[in-house]
Protein backbone atom coordinates (compact mmCIF):
# COMPACT_ATOMS: atom_id res chain seq x y z
CA UNK A 1 0.00 0.00 0.00
CA UNK A 2 2.84 2.38 0.91
CA UNK A 3 4.43 1.62 -2.43
CA UNK A 4 1.20 2.37 -4.22
CA UNK A 5 0.96 5.72 -2.48
CA UNK A 6 4.58 6.52 -3.31
CA UNK A 7 3.95 5.42 -6.90
CA UNK A 8 0.87 7.60 -6.94
CA UNK A 9 2.84 10.60 -5.73
CA UNK A 10 5.55 10.01 -8.29
CA UNK A 11 2.99 9.53 -11.05
CA UNK A 12 1.13 12.68 -9.99
CA UNK A 13 4.35 14.69 -10.05
CA UNK A 14 5.15 13.22 -13.46
CA UNK A 15 1.68 13.98 -14.83
CA UNK A 16 1.78 17.53 -13.54
CA UNK A 17 5.35 18.29 -14.52
CA UNK A 18 4.92 16.86 -18.02
CA UNK A 19 1.58 18.69 -18.31
CA UNK A 20 -0.08 15.48 -19.45
CA UNK A 21 -2.70 16.69 -21.96
CA UNK A 22 -5.47 14.36 -20.74
CA UNK A 23 -4.94 15.24 -17.08
CA UNK A 24 -4.83 18.95 -17.89
CA UNK A 25 -8.01 18.60 -19.91
CA UNK A 26 -9.83 16.69 -17.15
CA UNK A 27 -8.59 19.09 -14.49
CA UNK A 28 -9.62 22.15 -16.49
CA UNK A 29 -13.06 20.65 -17.15
CA UNK A 30 -13.44 19.80 -13.47
CA UNK A 31 -12.57 23.34 -12.49
CA UNK A 32 -14.83 24.94 -15.10
CA UNK A 33 -17.83 22.78 -14.19
CA UNK A 34 -17.39 23.13 -10.41
CA UNK A 35 -16.64 26.86 -10.54
CA UNK A 36 -19.62 27.43 -12.86
CA UNK A 37 -21.99 25.54 -10.59
CA UNK A 38 -20.61 27.34 -7.53
CA UNK A 39 -21.01 30.71 -9.25
CA UNK A 40 -24.54 29.87 -10.37
CA UNK A 41 -25.54 28.59 -6.94
CA UNK A 42 -24.00 31.69 -5.30
CA UNK A 43 -25.90 34.01 -7.63
CA UNK A 44 -29.14 32.28 -6.66
CA UNK A 45 -28.48 31.50 -3.01
CA UNK A 46 -27.06 34.80 -1.75
CA UNK A 47 -29.95 37.08 -2.84
CA UNK A 48 -32.52 34.40 -1.96
CA UNK A 49 -30.89 33.76 1.42
CA UNK A 50 -30.78 37.51 2.02
CA UNK A 51 -34.45 37.80 1.21
CA UNK A 52 -35.29 34.98 3.62
CA UNK A 53 -33.11 36.48 6.34
CA UNK A 54 -34.65 39.94 6.08
CA UNK A 55 -38.21 38.66 5.94
CA UNK A 56 -40.57 37.45 8.59
CA UNK A 57 -43.17 35.05 7.27
CA UNK A 58 -45.16 32.05 8.35
CA UNK A 59 -43.26 28.82 7.84
CA UNK A 60 -39.83 30.46 7.92
CA UNK A 61 -38.51 28.00 10.47
CA UNK A 62 -39.92 25.03 8.58
CA UNK A 63 -38.31 26.30 5.38
CA UNK A 64 -34.93 26.64 7.12
CA UNK A 65 -35.30 23.15 8.54
CA UNK A 66 -36.00 21.78 5.06
CA UNK A 67 -33.01 23.64 3.58
CA UNK A 68 -30.72 22.35 6.31
CA UNK A 69 -31.97 18.81 5.79
CA UNK A 70 -31.03 19.11 2.13
CA UNK A 71 -27.41 19.89 3.10
CA UNK A 72 -26.78 16.18 3.32
CA UNK A 73 -28.84 14.97 0.39
CA UNK A 74 -26.90 12.09 -1.26
CA UNK A 75 -25.38 13.11 -4.57
CA UNK A 76 -26.78 10.02 -6.28
CA UNK A 77 -30.30 11.08 -5.27
CA UNK A 78 -29.78 14.45 -6.95
CA UNK A 79 -28.23 12.61 -9.90
CA UNK A 80 -31.16 10.24 -10.14
CA UNK A 81 -33.72 13.02 -9.87
CA UNK A 82 -32.01 15.05 -12.53
CA UNK A 83 -31.54 11.96 -14.72
CA UNK A 84 -35.31 11.39 -14.63
CA UNK A 85 -36.00 15.06 -15.33
CA UNK A 86 -33.48 15.26 -18.18
CA UNK A 87 -34.14 11.90 -19.81
CA UNK A 88 -35.86 12.06 -23.18
CA UNK A 89 -39.26 11.35 -21.61
CA UNK A 90 -38.70 13.81 -18.72
CA UNK A 91 -39.92 17.44 -18.58
CA UNK A 92 -36.41 18.76 -19.31
CA UNK A 93 -35.80 16.18 -22.04
CA UNK A 94 -36.09 18.65 -24.94
CA UNK A 95 -33.22 20.67 -23.48
CA UNK A 96 -30.89 17.68 -24.13
CA UNK A 97 -28.94 18.20 -20.90
CA UNK A 98 -28.21 14.55 -20.24
CA UNK A 99 -24.55 13.56 -20.62
CA UNK A 100 -23.46 17.17 -21.16
CA UNK A 101 -21.23 19.46 -19.08
CA UNK A 102 -24.22 21.87 -18.84
CA UNK A 103 -26.28 19.10 -17.24
CA UNK A 104 -23.43 18.46 -14.80
CA UNK A 105 -23.32 22.18 -13.89
CA UNK A 106 -27.07 22.12 -13.30
CA UNK A 107 -26.78 19.00 -11.13
CA UNK A 108 -23.94 20.36 -9.02
CA UNK A 109 -25.77 23.67 -8.66
CA UNK A 110 -28.81 21.84 -7.28
CA UNK A 111 -26.55 19.84 -4.99
CA UNK A 112 -24.84 22.81 -3.35
CA UNK A 113 -27.70 25.29 -3.50
CA UNK A 114 -29.17 24.24 -0.11
CA UNK A 115 -25.76 24.59 1.55
CA UNK A 116 -25.18 28.08 0.20
CA UNK A 117 -28.78 29.14 0.82
CA UNK A 118 -28.84 27.84 4.38
CA UNK A 119 -25.45 29.25 5.28
CA UNK A 120 -26.35 32.64 3.80
CA UNK A 121 -29.47 32.80 5.98
CA UNK A 122 -27.59 31.59 9.06
CA UNK A 123 -24.74 34.04 8.48
CA UNK A 124 -27.02 37.04 8.02
CA UNK A 125 -29.23 36.02 10.95
CA UNK A 126 -26.10 35.76 13.07
CA UNK A 127 -24.96 39.33 12.39
CA UNK A 128 -25.22 41.81 15.24
CA UNK A 129 -28.89 42.84 15.49
CA UNK A 130 -27.61 46.40 16.00
CA UNK A 131 -26.37 46.49 12.41
CA UNK A 132 -29.89 45.73 11.11
CA UNK A 133 -31.47 48.33 13.40
CA UNK A 134 -28.83 50.96 12.62
CA UNK A 135 -29.36 50.55 8.88
CA UNK A 136 -33.15 50.72 9.20
CA UNK A 137 -32.90 53.79 11.39
CA UNK A 138 -30.51 55.46 8.96
CA UNK A 139 -33.21 55.11 6.31
CA UNK A 140 -31.84 52.21 4.28
CA UNK A 141 -34.21 50.75 1.74
CA UNK A 142 -34.67 46.97 1.74
CA UNK A 143 -32.11 46.44 -1.02
CA UNK A 144 -29.59 48.87 0.51
CA UNK A 145 -29.89 47.01 3.79
CA UNK A 146 -29.36 43.66 2.08
CA UNK A 147 -26.28 44.85 0.21
CA UNK A 148 -24.67 46.42 3.28
CA UNK A 149 -25.39 43.38 5.45
CA UNK A 150 -23.98 41.06 2.78
CA UNK A 151 -20.86 43.19 2.78
CA UNK A 152 -20.58 42.81 6.56
CA UNK A 153 -20.96 39.05 6.21
CA UNK A 154 -18.66 38.70 3.21
CA UNK A 155 -15.96 36.61 4.90
CA UNK A 156 -18.42 34.11 6.34
CA UNK A 157 -20.17 33.99 2.97
CA UNK A 158 -16.87 33.38 1.25
CA UNK A 159 -16.30 30.42 3.55
CA UNK A 160 -19.78 29.12 2.66
CA UNK A 161 -19.00 29.45 -1.05
CA UNK A 162 -15.74 27.57 -0.51
CA UNK A 163 -17.64 24.80 1.25
CA UNK A 164 -20.07 24.65 -1.67
CA UNK A 165 -17.19 24.52 -4.15
CA UNK A 166 -15.62 21.73 -2.12
CA UNK A 167 -18.82 19.69 -2.27
CA UNK A 168 -19.21 20.35 -6.01
CA UNK A 169 -15.66 19.42 -6.99
CA UNK A 170 -15.61 16.30 -4.86
CA UNK A 171 -18.98 14.82 -5.74
CA UNK A 172 -19.21 11.84 -8.06
CA UNK A 173 -22.91 10.85 -8.11
CA UNK A 174 -24.21 13.70 -10.28
CA UNK A 175 -21.08 13.76 -12.43
CA UNK A 176 -21.41 10.12 -13.35
CA UNK A 177 -25.22 9.92 -13.66
CA UNK A 178 -25.71 13.17 -15.57
CA UNK A 179 -22.30 13.47 -17.21
CA UNK A 180 -21.80 9.81 -17.99
CA UNK A 181 -17.99 10.03 -17.75
CA UNK A 182 -17.55 10.47 -21.51
CA UNK A 183 -13.85 10.74 -22.33
CA UNK A 184 -12.93 14.14 -23.70
CA UNK A 185 -16.39 15.56 -23.02
CA UNK A 186 -17.78 15.00 -19.51
CA UNK A 187 -14.99 13.19 -17.72
CA UNK A 188 -13.93 15.00 -14.56
CA UNK A 189 -11.41 14.15 -11.85
CA UNK A 190 -13.83 12.24 -9.61
CA UNK A 191 -15.33 10.14 -12.40
CA UNK A 192 -11.86 9.50 -13.81
CA UNK A 193 -10.67 8.31 -10.38
CA UNK A 194 -13.71 6.05 -10.11
CA UNK A 195 -13.07 4.58 -13.58
CA UNK A 196 -9.30 4.12 -13.13
CA UNK A 197 -9.83 2.41 -9.75
CA UNK A 198 -12.36 0.00 -11.24
CA UNK A 199 -9.83 -0.74 -13.97
CA UNK A 200 -7.12 -1.45 -11.37
CA UNK A 201 -5.01 1.65 -12.17
CA UNK A 202 -4.58 2.49 -8.51
CA UNK A 203 -1.49 4.64 -9.10
CA UNK A 204 -3.26 6.81 -11.65
CA UNK A 205 -6.30 7.05 -9.38
CA UNK A 206 -4.08 8.21 -6.56
CA UNK A 207 -2.37 10.71 -8.82
CA UNK A 208 -5.72 12.15 -9.87
CA UNK A 209 -6.81 12.17 -6.23
CA UNK A 210 -3.70 14.12 -5.28
CA UNK A 211 -4.43 16.64 -8.02
CA UNK A 212 -8.01 16.95 -6.74
CA UNK A 213 -6.75 17.54 -3.21
CA UNK A 214 -4.20 20.04 -4.46
CA UNK A 215 -6.97 21.97 -6.23
CA UNK A 216 -9.03 22.07 -3.04
CA UNK A 217 -5.93 23.18 -1.14
CA UNK A 218 -5.20 26.00 -3.60
CA UNK A 219 -8.79 27.25 -3.46
CA UNK A 220 -8.80 27.14 0.34
CA UNK A 221 -5.47 28.92 0.52
CA UNK A 222 -6.78 31.62 -1.80
CA UNK A 223 -9.89 32.09 0.35
CA UNK A 224 -7.82 32.21 3.51
CA UNK A 225 -5.53 34.82 2.02
CA UNK A 226 -8.54 36.88 0.96
CA UNK A 227 -10.09 36.62 4.42
CA UNK A 228 -6.85 37.44 6.16
CA UNK A 229 -6.16 40.42 3.91
CA UNK A 230 -9.66 41.78 4.35
CA UNK A 231 -9.56 41.58 8.12
CA UNK A 232 -6.23 43.31 8.51
Amino acid at each position, binding site marked *: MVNEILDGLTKAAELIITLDPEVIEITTRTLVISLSSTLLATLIAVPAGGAISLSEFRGRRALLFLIQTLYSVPTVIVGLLLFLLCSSSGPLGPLRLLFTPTGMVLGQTLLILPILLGLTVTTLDGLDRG*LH*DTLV*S*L*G*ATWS*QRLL*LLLREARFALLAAVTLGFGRAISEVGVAIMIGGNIRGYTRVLTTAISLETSMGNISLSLALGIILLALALVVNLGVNLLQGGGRR
Partner: protein
Amino acid sequence: MIRCERVGWEIEGKTVLDDISLTVGQGEVLGLIGPSGSGKSSLIRIMDLLVTPTSGRLWIDSTEVTAGRVDLVGLRRRMGIVFHRPAVFSGDVRRNVSIGLGLRGIRGDDARLLVEETLEMVGLAGFGPRRASSLSGGELQRVAIARSLVTRPTVLFLDEPTANLDPLSTRVVEDVVRKARSDLGTTIVMATHDLDQGQRLCDRLAVMAAGRLVQVGSPPEIFYRPGTSEVARFVGAGNLVEGTVERMDRGVAFVRTTGGLLAVAVHAPVSGTVTVAIRPEEIVLSRGPAGPAGSPNHLSCRVTGVDTDGPLVRVHLDCGFPLIALVRRLTFVALALEPGQEVSAAFDPNGAHLIARA
Protein backbone atom coordinates in the same frame (compact mmCIF):
# COMPACT_ATOMS: atom_id res chain seq x y z
CA MET B 1 -42.86 67.42 16.30
CA ILE B 2 -43.67 63.95 17.71
CA ARG B 3 -46.99 63.06 19.24
CA CYS B 4 -48.01 59.74 20.78
CA GLU B 5 -51.68 59.29 21.52
CA ARG B 6 -52.63 56.32 23.69
CA VAL B 7 -49.83 54.26 22.15
CA GLY B 8 -49.59 50.63 23.20
CA TRP B 9 -47.37 47.74 22.17
CA GLU B 10 -47.91 44.08 22.84
CA ILE B 11 -45.62 41.20 21.95
CA GLU B 12 -46.91 37.66 22.13
CA GLY B 13 -49.68 38.67 24.51
CA LYS B 14 -47.34 40.58 26.82
CA THR B 15 -47.96 44.30 27.25
CA VAL B 16 -44.72 46.22 26.77
CA LEU B 17 -46.23 49.70 26.49
CA ASP B 18 -49.65 50.77 27.64
CA ASP B 19 -51.60 53.94 26.94
CA ILE B 20 -48.67 56.28 26.31
CA SER B 21 -49.64 59.85 25.44
CA LEU B 22 -46.71 62.19 25.01
CA THR B 23 -45.64 65.15 22.91
CA VAL B 24 -42.09 66.13 22.04
CA GLY B 25 -41.63 69.73 20.93
CA GLN B 26 -39.27 71.10 18.28
CA GLY B 27 -35.77 71.65 19.69
CA GLU B 28 -36.67 70.09 23.03
CA VAL B 29 -34.53 67.63 24.98
CA LEU B 30 -36.87 65.09 26.53
CA GLY B 31 -35.58 62.44 28.90
CA LEU B 32 -37.31 59.12 29.40
CA ILE B 33 -36.39 57.84 32.83
CA GLY B 34 -37.44 54.74 34.66
CA PRO B 35 -36.08 51.45 35.91
CA SER B 36 -34.86 48.71 33.56
CA GLY B 37 -37.74 47.05 31.74
CA SER B 38 -40.05 50.04 32.17
CA GLY B 39 -40.44 50.45 28.39
CA LYS B 40 -38.11 53.40 27.68
CA SER B 41 -36.24 51.68 24.85
CA SER B 42 -39.46 50.29 23.39
CA LEU B 43 -41.01 53.76 23.28
CA ILE B 44 -37.90 55.13 21.58
CA ARG B 45 -37.99 52.31 19.01
CA ILE B 46 -41.62 53.13 18.28
CA MET B 47 -40.94 56.84 17.88
CA ASP B 48 -37.96 56.06 15.62
CA LEU B 49 -40.29 53.89 13.52
CA LEU B 50 -38.28 50.71 14.10
CA VAL B 51 -41.41 48.97 15.37
CA THR B 52 -45.08 49.63 14.89
CA PRO B 53 -47.33 50.12 17.92
CA THR B 54 -50.19 47.66 18.28
CA SER B 55 -52.58 50.37 19.43
CA GLY B 56 -52.85 54.14 19.53
CA ARG B 57 -51.70 56.77 17.08
CA LEU B 58 -48.33 58.34 16.34
CA TRP B 59 -47.53 61.54 14.48
CA ILE B 60 -44.18 62.75 13.18
CA ASP B 61 -44.77 66.42 12.43
CA SER B 62 -48.10 66.41 10.60
CA THR B 63 -47.79 62.84 9.28
CA GLU B 64 -49.77 60.23 11.10
CA VAL B 65 -47.46 57.24 10.92
CA THR B 66 -50.03 54.80 12.25
CA ALA B 67 -52.51 55.69 9.50
CA GLY B 68 -50.67 53.41 7.02
CA ARG B 69 -49.42 54.16 3.48
CA VAL B 70 -46.63 56.33 4.86
CA ASP B 71 -43.15 56.76 3.41
CA LEU B 72 -41.37 55.20 6.40
CA VAL B 73 -37.94 55.34 4.78
CA GLY B 74 -38.37 59.06 4.08
CA LEU B 75 -39.47 59.73 7.66
CA ARG B 76 -36.65 57.64 9.12
CA ARG B 77 -34.15 59.65 7.09
CA ARG B 78 -35.19 62.73 9.06
CA MET B 79 -34.33 61.01 12.34
CA GLY B 80 -31.37 59.29 13.95
CA ILE B 81 -30.86 56.88 16.80
CA VAL B 82 -27.92 55.89 18.98
CA PHE B 83 -28.22 52.60 20.83
CA HIS B 84 -26.58 51.90 24.16
CA ARG B 85 -24.36 49.34 22.45
CA PRO B 86 -23.16 50.95 19.22
CA ALA B 87 -23.12 48.81 16.09
CA VAL B 88 -19.74 48.73 14.40
CA PHE B 89 -19.52 48.28 10.66
CA SER B 90 -16.37 46.91 9.11
CA GLY B 91 -13.82 49.38 7.84
CA ASP B 92 -12.61 52.69 9.15
CA VAL B 93 -14.31 55.41 11.16
CA ARG B 94 -14.97 57.46 8.04
CA ARG B 95 -16.95 54.62 6.48
CA ASN B 96 -18.87 54.02 9.70
CA VAL B 97 -19.86 57.67 9.91
CA SER B 98 -20.70 58.11 6.24
CA ILE B 99 -23.02 55.10 5.85
CA GLY B 100 -26.16 57.22 6.22
CA LEU B 101 -24.85 59.70 3.67
CA GLY B 102 -24.21 56.89 1.18
CA LEU B 103 -27.80 55.71 1.62
CA ARG B 104 -28.94 59.21 0.65
CA GLY B 105 -26.67 59.32 -2.39
CA ILE B 106 -24.29 61.87 -0.83
CA ARG B 107 -20.74 60.90 -1.78
CA GLY B 108 -17.39 62.41 -2.70
CA ASP B 109 -16.27 65.79 -1.37
CA ASP B 110 -19.68 66.68 0.07
CA ALA B 111 -19.69 63.52 2.14
CA ARG B 112 -16.06 63.91 3.18
CA LEU B 113 -16.67 67.46 4.36
CA LEU B 114 -19.73 66.49 6.39
CA VAL B 115 -17.93 63.54 7.96
CA GLU B 116 -14.89 65.64 8.94
CA GLU B 117 -17.13 68.37 10.33
CA THR B 118 -19.16 65.92 12.39
CA LEU B 119 -16.11 64.02 13.65
CA GLU B 120 -14.70 67.33 14.86
CA MET B 121 -18.00 68.08 16.56
CA VAL B 122 -17.90 64.82 18.52
CA GLY B 123 -14.24 65.36 19.41
CA LEU B 124 -12.86 62.74 17.02
CA ALA B 125 -11.09 64.98 14.49
CA GLY B 126 -8.43 62.98 12.71
CA PHE B 127 -9.99 59.63 13.60
CA GLY B 128 -11.37 59.11 10.06
CA PRO B 129 -8.75 56.61 8.81
CA ARG B 130 -8.68 54.59 12.04
CA ARG B 131 -10.21 51.13 12.15
CA ALA B 132 -13.55 51.40 13.91
CA SER B 133 -13.18 48.08 15.69
CA SER B 134 -10.00 49.31 17.38
CA LEU B 135 -11.72 52.17 19.24
CA SER B 136 -12.66 52.29 22.91
CA GLY B 137 -16.28 52.09 24.08
CA GLY B 138 -16.52 55.85 24.58
CA GLU B 139 -15.00 56.59 21.18
CA LEU B 140 -17.30 54.08 19.51
CA GLN B 141 -20.31 55.70 21.10
CA ARG B 142 -19.17 59.05 19.72
CA VAL B 143 -18.74 57.45 16.29
CA ALA B 144 -22.33 56.19 16.58
CA ILE B 145 -23.50 59.70 17.49
CA ALA B 146 -21.52 61.13 14.58
CA ARG B 147 -23.10 58.52 12.27
CA SER B 148 -26.52 59.78 13.27
CA LEU B 149 -25.67 63.50 13.30
CA VAL B 150 -23.85 63.53 9.97
CA THR B 151 -27.20 63.28 8.20
CA ARG B 152 -28.34 66.34 10.20
CA PRO B 153 -31.49 64.70 11.59
CA THR B 154 -34.24 66.87 13.01
CA VAL B 155 -34.72 64.37 15.85
CA LEU B 156 -32.04 62.33 17.57
CA PHE B 157 -33.00 59.41 19.79
CA LEU B 158 -30.48 58.24 22.36
CA ASP B 159 -31.14 54.91 24.02
CA GLU B 160 -29.06 54.77 27.21
CA PRO B 161 -26.10 56.29 25.35
CA THR B 162 -23.77 56.20 28.34
CA ALA B 163 -24.96 53.00 30.01
CA ASN B 164 -21.66 51.19 29.45
CA LEU B 165 -19.26 54.11 29.70
CA ASP B 166 -16.89 55.34 32.40
CA PRO B 167 -17.63 58.75 34.00
CA LEU B 168 -15.11 60.59 31.81
CA SER B 169 -16.50 59.18 28.55
CA THR B 170 -20.01 59.89 29.85
CA ARG B 171 -19.15 63.59 30.28
CA VAL B 172 -17.72 63.73 26.75
CA VAL B 173 -20.86 62.13 25.28
CA GLU B 174 -23.03 64.54 27.27
CA ASP B 175 -21.09 67.49 25.86
CA VAL B 176 -21.69 66.13 22.36
CA VAL B 177 -25.42 65.95 23.07
CA ARG B 178 -25.41 69.56 24.29
CA LYS B 179 -23.53 70.63 21.14
CA ALA B 180 -25.98 68.77 18.89
CA ARG B 181 -28.75 70.75 20.45
CA SER B 182 -27.04 74.14 20.50
CA ASP B 183 -25.20 73.96 17.17
CA LEU B 184 -27.67 71.98 15.07
CA GLY B 185 -30.94 72.65 16.89
CA THR B 186 -31.63 68.93 17.03
CA THR B 187 -34.64 67.72 18.97
CA ILE B 188 -33.43 65.03 21.35
CA VAL B 189 -35.26 62.20 23.06
CA MET B 190 -33.06 60.20 25.39
CA ALA B 191 -33.71 57.18 27.53
CA THR B 192 -31.61 57.00 30.63
CA HIS B 193 -31.69 55.43 34.04
CA ASP B 194 -29.06 57.93 35.18
CA LEU B 195 -31.19 60.47 37.02
CA ASP B 196 -28.42 63.02 37.34
CA GLN B 197 -27.85 62.85 33.61
CA GLY B 198 -31.56 63.40 33.00
CA GLN B 199 -31.38 66.45 35.23
CA ARG B 200 -28.24 67.77 33.55
CA LEU B 201 -29.38 67.42 29.94
CA CYS B 202 -33.16 67.47 29.72
CA ASP B 203 -35.77 70.21 29.55
CA ARG B 204 -38.47 67.73 30.55
CA LEU B 205 -38.49 64.27 32.00
CA ALA B 206 -41.03 61.54 31.41
CA VAL B 207 -41.00 58.88 34.11
CA MET B 208 -41.94 55.38 33.00
CA ALA B 209 -42.80 52.35 35.09
CA ALA B 210 -44.06 48.95 33.95
CA GLY B 211 -44.78 50.16 30.42
CA ARG B 212 -46.77 53.20 31.49
CA LEU B 213 -46.01 56.89 31.61
CA VAL B 214 -46.26 57.85 35.25
CA GLN B 215 -45.33 61.53 35.28
CA VAL B 216 -44.07 64.16 32.86
CA GLY B 217 -42.56 67.44 33.99
CA SER B 218 -39.47 69.59 34.35
CA PRO B 219 -36.58 68.02 36.28
CA PRO B 220 -37.31 70.07 39.44
CA GLU B 221 -40.97 69.03 39.27
CA ILE B 222 -40.06 65.37 38.95
CA PHE B 223 -37.38 65.45 41.62
CA TYR B 224 -39.07 67.69 44.15
CA ARG B 225 -42.77 67.14 43.45
CA PRO B 226 -43.10 63.48 42.45
CA GLY B 227 -46.68 62.58 41.60
CA THR B 228 -46.69 59.08 43.05
CA SER B 229 -44.79 57.09 45.65
CA GLU B 230 -43.39 55.04 42.76
CA VAL B 231 -41.87 58.14 41.13
CA ALA B 232 -40.67 59.45 44.49
CA ARG B 233 -38.91 56.17 45.18
CA PHE B 234 -37.33 56.11 41.72
CA VAL B 235 -36.06 59.71 41.82
CA GLY B 236 -34.48 59.16 45.18
CA ALA B 237 -36.91 60.91 47.50
CA GLY B 238 -36.17 57.84 49.55
CA ASN B 239 -38.18 58.75 52.66
CA LEU B 240 -41.84 57.99 52.18
CA VAL B 241 -43.83 58.39 55.37
CA GLU B 242 -47.50 57.44 55.63
CA GLY B 243 -49.81 59.76 57.58
CA THR B 244 -53.14 61.54 57.83
CA VAL B 245 -53.70 65.25 57.25
CA GLU B 246 -54.77 66.69 60.58
CA ARG B 247 -55.27 70.28 59.50
CA MET B 248 -54.33 72.89 56.92
CA ASP B 249 -52.91 76.26 57.87
CA ARG B 250 -51.74 78.97 55.43
CA GLY B 251 -50.44 76.63 52.74
CA VAL B 252 -49.04 74.11 55.17
CA ALA B 253 -50.51 70.65 55.76
CA PHE B 254 -49.96 69.12 59.17
CA VAL B 255 -49.68 65.38 58.87
CA ARG B 256 -49.93 63.00 61.82
CA THR B 257 -47.47 60.14 61.49
CA THR B 258 -46.28 57.38 63.77
CA GLY B 259 -43.23 59.51 64.56
CA GLY B 260 -45.03 62.77 65.30
CA LEU B 261 -46.45 65.75 63.45
CA LEU B 262 -44.94 66.73 60.11
CA ALA B 263 -45.51 70.06 58.38
CA VAL B 264 -45.40 70.10 54.60
CA ALA B 265 -45.86 73.09 52.29
CA VAL B 266 -48.62 72.46 49.73
CA HIS B 267 -50.02 74.38 46.77
CA ALA B 268 -53.60 73.20 47.21
CA PRO B 269 -55.68 71.93 50.13
CA VAL B 270 -55.35 68.23 50.86
CA SER B 271 -57.05 65.86 53.24
CA GLY B 272 -57.17 62.21 54.25
CA THR B 273 -54.38 59.69 54.04
CA VAL B 274 -51.21 60.92 52.36
CA THR B 275 -47.57 60.02 51.82
CA VAL B 276 -44.91 62.54 52.82
CA ALA B 277 -41.87 62.37 50.55
CA ILE B 278 -38.74 63.80 52.15
CA ARG B 279 -35.51 63.93 50.17
CA PRO B 280 -32.61 62.61 52.32
CA GLU B 281 -30.45 65.64 51.53
CA GLU B 282 -33.13 67.99 52.96
CA ILE B 283 -32.76 66.54 56.45
CA VAL B 284 -30.55 68.35 58.93
CA LEU B 285 -29.12 66.39 61.86
CA SER B 286 -27.99 67.84 65.18
CA ARG B 287 -26.97 66.59 68.59
CA GLY B 288 -29.22 69.08 70.46
CA PRO B 289 -32.83 68.59 71.56
CA ALA B 290 -35.48 68.08 68.90
CA GLY B 291 -37.09 71.47 69.56
CA PRO B 292 -40.21 72.26 71.56
CA ALA B 293 -42.22 69.14 72.43
CA GLY B 294 -44.50 68.20 69.57
CA SER B 295 -43.19 70.93 67.25
CA PRO B 296 -43.53 69.71 63.67
CA ASN B 297 -40.57 68.53 61.62
CA HIS B 298 -38.32 68.22 64.66
CA LEU B 299 -37.87 64.55 65.25
CA SER B 300 -36.09 62.67 67.98
CA CYS B 301 -34.33 59.75 66.33
CA ARG B 302 -31.87 56.98 66.95
CA VAL B 303 -29.10 56.12 64.48
CA THR B 304 -29.59 52.58 63.20
CA GLY B 305 -26.90 52.44 60.57
CA VAL B 306 -24.39 54.37 58.52
CA ASP B 307 -23.05 53.87 55.00
CA THR B 308 -21.25 55.98 52.45
CA ASP B 309 -22.80 57.39 49.29
CA GLY B 310 -19.97 58.86 47.19
CA PRO B 311 -18.75 62.02 48.92
CA LEU B 312 -21.72 61.94 51.32
CA VAL B 313 -22.70 59.74 54.24
CA ARG B 314 -26.08 58.04 54.41
CA VAL B 315 -27.39 57.90 57.98
CA HIS B 316 -30.24 55.48 58.72
CA LEU B 317 -32.52 56.64 61.53
CA ASP B 318 -35.47 55.38 63.52
CA CYS B 319 -37.76 58.36 64.20
CA GLY B 320 -40.90 56.38 64.89
CA PHE B 321 -40.68 55.60 61.20
CA PRO B 322 -37.54 54.78 59.22
CA LEU B 323 -35.77 57.85 57.88
CA ILE B 324 -32.58 58.30 55.83
CA ALA B 325 -30.50 61.47 55.96
CA LEU B 326 -27.64 62.37 53.60
CA VAL B 327 -24.97 64.45 55.31
CA ARG B 328 -21.58 65.76 54.32
CA ARG B 329 -18.61 63.83 55.63
CA LEU B 330 -17.47 66.80 57.73
CA THR B 331 -20.89 67.02 59.40
CA PHE B 332 -20.82 63.30 59.99
CA VAL B 333 -17.41 63.54 61.68
CA ALA B 334 -18.40 66.60 63.71
CA LEU B 335 -21.54 64.89 65.02
CA ALA B 336 -19.57 61.70 65.68
CA LEU B 337 -22.54 59.66 64.52
CA GLU B 338 -22.66 55.96 65.24
CA PRO B 339 -25.39 53.32 65.56
CA GLY B 340 -27.47 53.54 68.73
CA GLN B 341 -26.83 57.23 69.23
CA GLU B 342 -29.73 59.67 69.88
CA VAL B 343 -29.93 62.52 67.37
CA SER B 344 -32.35 65.23 66.25
CA ALA B 345 -33.58 65.42 62.66
CA ALA B 346 -35.31 68.41 61.14
CA PHE B 347 -36.42 69.57 57.74
CA ASP B 348 -38.06 72.61 56.22
CA PRO B 349 -41.75 72.28 55.25
CA ASN B 350 -40.68 73.32 51.73
CA GLY B 351 -38.16 70.46 51.64
CA ALA B 352 -40.87 67.82 51.69
CA HIS B 353 -43.65 66.96 49.29
CA LEU B 354 -47.10 65.56 49.87
CA ILE B 355 -48.42 62.74 47.69
CA ALA B 356 -52.16 62.24 47.93
CA ARG B 357 -53.31 58.61 48.02
CA ALA B 358 -54.97 57.58 44.77
